[in-house]
């Protein structure tokens, strides 16, 4: 049995690589058009089945390739890795199905060839990250993930603005990768090598100072990838400019590898931490959650709005992780399991509904050639299936009952409420208050998605593009429908996923009993679903008559599309209440200045000025540039000086070696 699993895993890895030549083939000959997507889907299916077996297995699957690589290169699928492998392969499958019919519509053969090849390698790099068992293999996957996603963004064009955004993305990713690498290397003096098993074993021997350093470096490193505020700067710039399926993969999956890495470090290697570490993660999550959703409300570019919602959801995940760390530090492992299960389940849910929404955004752009929701309207009548699946995505992300987002948010709520059972005073106050924060995030997210759906899909079309929109082809619909179906099923029957998650959380948090809150959740979801659906059926069966007629237009000849609320108008009250967050810079110019009552033109503009660039990043980059300018003095260009440097280095090294003896 293990032999079979090992073989299928190897086959899965090879098939990912195999997509590259098939993509080349497909670009040459029309007969092989179907090949890259098929091979990629086969490898994803193999990955799903391996993960499905391993998530139940007590013994991890090991694969050591150190003989063929210069550094220790080993892969291992334990329960945590298996869950994330399942997540990556499972969510990528419908995205690839979507891409299959999306790419030929939007890209030339050569471009599609590049996207297929890069996309497959990008997925392979994510698989590598989650199954790595040495720092070397992890960092290789981590670096490839950044570079390949950047390459995929470049396929879509290389205008000056895109290059600027891409540069910010790459710089921040490498700063984060440096922090991750440093947190690995901090283990070295004690652990001897960088196998994950040695890191785990050595963590108890570390000094508290080193543990703190490792934790903080991992928090910053993975937090950059996850898009925790204020490390989120790259996220709303990089995600929207990628090709749509890649946006879905970046937002749905790539962010999750950061969550994986953080869990691997803080729970697996370090086995929890001091209480303040839990508070740090919890507060960072809460800030990201609230600010993420507030920034999203201010947006009317659909993809950028969704990118900000990724920040919000990562915030919710981090709140769960923070609560788990706090429970661990307060010696209540059962509740830590609950919080961890909540965070992991929300990770899966976010991967599902965020990919769905990004694919939906792509379908809208495909049908109308715009992503500005103020240009849309009335799309549900023209894109019925896209509209229905997008609605499922909206309701799920908001966390409304009978959809998957609700289940994980309910579990997160319960872990916060469980904070009141602790003996220490601070968590008894702070954790229950976080329930309020989560409710605020939920309320604001509901406002935001009511805006998105109401403006884009309902009402009257606001432009001729929206009026002449046509439903997208079946492959795209299939991908979205699969994801929407998963959102609904997990929202009513979460137990098949919760069970392995509990087993997984119990391996990360030893000696934990099973909290009934997790196991009993389906017992209240199913009757609720039955009641809602039964009642809905009754109201439908009642069969009331309907008549189509124009609504009263206050005496005007008829309603026009300009009379509808736009997304900007819809979000105005919320932006007004939270104006301290947006710090709007409003400019009103009335021309000519001398005649206030009879102006010839009035112009008004309002921009958000909460600028992390100005207050956080600008000083930092200035400092780096200043340091670099100073360092440049070393580079005189004079060969004698360089010889002097070599000599001094040699002396210093000899001195160090001599002193050590």
């Amino acid at each position, binding site marked *: 049995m293990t032999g079979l699993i090992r073989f299928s895993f190897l086959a899965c890895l090879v098939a990912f690589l195999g997509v590259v030549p098939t993509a080349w083939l497909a670009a040459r000959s029309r007969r092989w058009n179907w090949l890259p997507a098929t091979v990629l889907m086969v490898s994803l299916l193999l990955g799903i089945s391996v993960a499905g077996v391993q998530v139940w297995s007590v013994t991890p699957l090991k694969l050591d390739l150190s003989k063929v690589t210069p550094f220790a290169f080993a892969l291992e699928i334990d329960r945590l890795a298996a869950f994330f492998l399942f997540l990556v392969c499972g969510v990528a499958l419908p995205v690839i199905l979507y891409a299959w019919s999306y790419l030929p519509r939007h890209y030339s053969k050569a471009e599609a060839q590049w996207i297929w090849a890069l996309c497959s390698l990008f997925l392979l790099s994510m698989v590598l990250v989650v199954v790595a068992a040495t720092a070397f293999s992890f960092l290789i996957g981590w670096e490839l993930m950044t570079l390949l996603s950047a390459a995929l963004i470049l396929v879509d064009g290389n205008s000056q603005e895109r290059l600027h955004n891409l540069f910010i993305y790459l710089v921040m990713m490498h700063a984060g990768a440096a922090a991750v690498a440093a947190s690995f290397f901090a283990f070295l003096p004690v652990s001897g090598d960088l196998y994950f098993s040695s890191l785990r074993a050595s963590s108890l021997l570390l000094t508290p100072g080193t543990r703190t350093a490792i934790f903080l470096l991992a928090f910053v490193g993975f937090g950059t990838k996850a898009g925790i505020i204020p490390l989120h700067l790259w996220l709303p710039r990089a995600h929207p400019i990628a090709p749509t399926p890649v946006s879905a993969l970046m937002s749905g999956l790539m962010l999750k590898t950061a969550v994986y890495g953080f869990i691997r470090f803080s729970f697996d290697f370090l086995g929890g931490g001091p209480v303040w570490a839990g508070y740090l993660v919890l507060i960072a999550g809460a800030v990201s959650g609230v600010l993420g959703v507030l920034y999203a409300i201010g947006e009317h570019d659909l993809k950028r709005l969704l990118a900000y919602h990724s920040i919000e959801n990562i915030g919710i995940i981090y709140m769960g992780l923070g609560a788990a760390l706090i429970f661990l530090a307060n010696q209540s492992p059962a509740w830590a399991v609950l919080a961890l299960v909540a965070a992991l389940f929300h990770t899966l849910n976010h991967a599902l509904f965020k990919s769905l929404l990004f694919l939906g955004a792509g379908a809208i752009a495909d049908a109308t050639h715009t992503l500005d929701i103020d240009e849309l309207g009335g799309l549900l009548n023209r894109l019925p299936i896209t509209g229905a699946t997008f609605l499922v995505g909206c309701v799920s992300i908001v966390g*409304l009952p009978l959809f998957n987002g609700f289940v994980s948010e309910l579990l997160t709520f319960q872990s916060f409420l469980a904070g009141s059972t602790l003996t220490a005073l601070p968590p008894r106050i702070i954790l229950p208050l976080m329930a309020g924060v989560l409710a605020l995030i939920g309320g604001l997210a509901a406002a935001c998605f009511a805006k998105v759906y109401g403006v884009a899909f309902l009402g009257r079309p606001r432009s001729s593009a929206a009026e002449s929109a046509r439903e997208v082809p079946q492959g795209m619909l299939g991908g979205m429908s699969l994801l929407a179906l998963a959102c609904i099923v997990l929202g009513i029957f979460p137990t098949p996923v919760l069970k392995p998650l509990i087993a997984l959380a119990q391996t990360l948090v030893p000696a934990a009993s099973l909290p009934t809150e997790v196991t009993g959740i389906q017992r209240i979801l199913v009757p609720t679903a039955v009641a809602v659906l039964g009642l809905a059926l009754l*109201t439908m069966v009642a069969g009331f008559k309907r008549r189509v007629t124009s609504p009263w237009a206050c005496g005007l000849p008829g309603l026009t599309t300009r009379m509808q609320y736009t997304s900007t108008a819809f979000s105005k009250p919320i932006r007004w209440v939270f104006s301290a967050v947006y710090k709007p810079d409003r400019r009103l110019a009335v021309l000519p200045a001398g005649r206030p009552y009879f102006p010839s033109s009035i112009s008004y503009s309002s921009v958000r000025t909460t600028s992390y660039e100005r207050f956080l990043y600008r000083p930092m980059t200035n400092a780096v540039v200043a340091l670099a300018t100073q360092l440049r003095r070393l580079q005189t260009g004079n060969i004698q000086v360089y010889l002097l440097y070599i000599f001094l280095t040699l002396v210093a090294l000899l001195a160090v070696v001599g002193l050590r003896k």
Partner: protein
Amino acid sequence: MTMLIHFLQALMIVFGAPLLRGVVSKMKARIQRRQGASIWRPYADLGKLFRKEDLVPPLASPVFRAAPRGVFCATTVAVLLIPVFRPAALLGGPGDFVLLVSLLALARFCLVLGGMDGGGAFGGMGGSREALVSALAEAPFLLGLTAVSILARSTQLARIVDWTLRQNFFDISAVHILALSTLAMVAIAETGRIPVDNPTTHLELTMIHEAMVLEHSGPSLAFLEWANSVKLGLIMSLLIGLFFPWGMAAEPSLLAIALAVAAYLVKMLALALILALVESSIAKMRMYAVPDFLGVASATGVLAVVFTVFGGR
């Protein structure tokens, strides 16, 4: 037997809700020295609307007719979670108060979408305002419920009510007072009563709920109006259950149930009178004062949760 009682208590809220609305308007009318309409008037209105047909704008999508039904379903299912005559309900489990809040949020989400599908200005206007009020009301709603749930050491509504029932009325703690004031303010915002929203106005400057339902007619409007009454009954019953459960039947004997029904009706009447008095004596707030009102509710909610650490027995 117990299942039947739990089913009946839900049915009573659903079918008695229009009567509650009629009673409140009658009380308001008498306080304002008017004769007022009959207390059975809302039933007549619903009957009339159900007999008519749905008028649908030409460009509206299926959401336009589905949304009112969704609002009704979600609100009605939420009623199944509320303990009324006994400290138990048809549906329930750990964390069911979060489900309650979320079901009401689901109803609201449908309501906003239904309003925006009309294609006019008012739907978006009402939706935008409702989105603001509900976004700000959700946090205090959950904080207030959290505070009482911490005191009762349970996250299940029925158990919380059961715990309160076994306490002495005069042992009530500061947490209860704070949570009650939080939830009372939230209740006003959630049910759209004065001073947050005026259920009888059609003035563009202030209307919230009425703006959203403006384009709906016939059975759709009936579902919306009915759901709105049910929501009022639901939230008032929730307040009674959480803060004044005394009189509820601890064991399912016929006499105890009869007493519980009588006690519930008296408490409901008293609450309706308070609502009528408040609505007749306070002016509606400006739209932009509502965030302050809900800010106060959030602050008392936070205090209630903080005080559980010190004051919770």
